[in-house]
């Protein structure tokens, strides 16, 4: 007996079980997307004072602000990740289904506004009143260059490749085939007592 052979009715049986499962796996995954927005954050700057010295303070929204904003949107059920790199570029990553695209886009713009507010608040609390004195007695103040909305870019990508989706579609068939031939083989040899 070749253990890998199946009778026609056995094949139809596993086909009937695996098609709905495979289709389910395919359809719950095919429209999943990753959505990312990037924008340049605001900064506080003091230019050309005391013989051309310049100071620039990036990342005006600090870690606790980012954490608070993240929690605000996570409590709405939105899986987000906000990060900022050394070049002051914010990245907001989220994921969802294709039909949630508008919601994701709307929330991402809201996040931009929240970050902008946090930056302005931190600027007025921590930088606006700082005087940078020179030896001569002259001084300068930090100016705010606000978050630039024109740098706002969006990126969308499918979360899964077609190969992965077709694999998900086919896997239940392979899985049940293996299960069936194993079951038949165990039935043939039996358990040792």
């Amino acid at each position, binding site marked *: 007996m070749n253990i890998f052979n199946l009778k026609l009715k056995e094949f139809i049986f596993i086909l009937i079980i695996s098609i709905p499962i495979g289709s389910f*796996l395919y359809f719950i995954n095919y429209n999943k997307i990753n959505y990312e927005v990037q924008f340049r954050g605001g900064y506080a700057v003091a230019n050309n004072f005391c013989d051309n010295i310049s100071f620039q303070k990036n990342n005006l929204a600090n870690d606790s602000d980012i954490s608070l904003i993240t929690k605000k949107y996570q409590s709405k059920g939105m*899986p987000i*990740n906000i*990060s900022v790199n050394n070049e002051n570029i914010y990245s907001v990553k989220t994921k969802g289904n294709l039909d949630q695209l508008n919601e994701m886009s709307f929330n991402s713009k809201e996040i931009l506004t929240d970050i902008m507010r946090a930056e302005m608040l931190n600027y007025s609390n921590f930088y606006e009143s700082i005087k940078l004195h020179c030896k001569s007695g002259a001084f300068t103040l930090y100016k705010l260059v606000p978050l630039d909305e024109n740098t706002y870019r969006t990126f969308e990508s499918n979360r899964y490749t077609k190969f992965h989706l077709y694999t998900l579609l086919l896997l239940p068939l392979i*899985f049940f085939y293996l299960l069936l031939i*194993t079951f038949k083989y165990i039935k043939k*040899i039996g358990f040792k007592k």
Partner: protein
Amino acid sequence: MRNRQTIFLGLVFSLASINFIYCVYFYVQNKYLPEPFFFDKSDTFMDFYNSLYWSVNEGAYTVWKSVYPPLNFLFLQIYQALCIEDVDHAKNGLDIRALSGYSIIPLLVLFIISIWASIRISYKSLLDIKVECIFFLLILMSPTFLYAVDRGNLIVFVIPILSVYVASRDNIYKALSFAVMVNIKPYLAIFYIFEILNFKLDKDTKDFLILAPLFTLIVFLGAGIIVNQEFYFLPFNLLGFGLNGGLFNPREILGFSSTITSFGYLKSVITTFWIPHGFEYLFKLLVYFYIVKILIFIYKYPIRFDDLVIFSIIFITNYSTSTGGYGLLYYIPAIGPLLKQKNYILIGIIIVSFYIGIWDLIPLYKYNASDMNIYLSGEVVKVGSYISFGSIIRPIANFIVLVLFSNNLKKRYFHEYI
């Protein structure tokens, strides 16, 4: 005989206790764990937390290039759902550990249960319950187990399953336990490869050889479907892992190793004296010589299942540094079959000595001390780590096990076939 056994076990237990008490004392005094614990004291439990992070985030096989089969991630997803509240906003494994440090406790309890289950399965008919308890405590205090705990490595879950594999006389249970083992640590497929190499034309072996890959695939695909990651990239990742020799830090390998091939890394860390060129190949050649010798024997003559299992474990722990020092835990189920055979008593004694950490108290080569952030105590401390006597004697002892096994195998089967 029984009296000798008791004295031996009592001696080993006393030595293990002294080492354990010393480790606790050292930690209280210095705020970090001594040798042979992982050299990076800020990385405690990170084998577990890194895997946990990737179990709930996409890219485990494409970005992280994981070599863990999906069953590991399935377990971690269940663990996360039951024991850790919210990991969505964690950016990496370190974040999860920082946010929910106590979430490791159920895992540690499961580790302890696994060791107890393994001992019960392997020694129920060989030792009485008191001796089993002493052996259990000995393993819990051993540097091998504590090192696995320090890393949070899921290898500990393999031990009771390996016990089932060794103890089982039914091919279905044997194949099923093999499938689960390989779906936790893929390199354990070596048990199957040696079975093929030693192919006997009896029905029992044939049944196992058919069922084992079927069960393995079923578990692999079933877990893969549920985990919903690109698990089919696992073979490529394993290949990349195997080919990438420079993946581990030499200090990490030398800190706690089971094979003399790790001595090749001495060249990279020792700067105070000269080590000749080709030193690293010498140890590899020695190990490969004995392994090939046994493999030829196994190919030529059918040997018993117990011997094949013991050799597989000896092979895994001697062949490569990639298995990690905690691979010595695989010997726990093997000591049972060894105790049954008089020829292997010496090997059994040497293996039990692996679980004594007293050798690690003796420093052989000290590294420069450096400031380190210690996770367990939460303090920044100057850590003065060293290559211990244990790091040298343990691999040598394991190599001696390989040599003794090779000689005994020839003696035992020589009269049967020649």
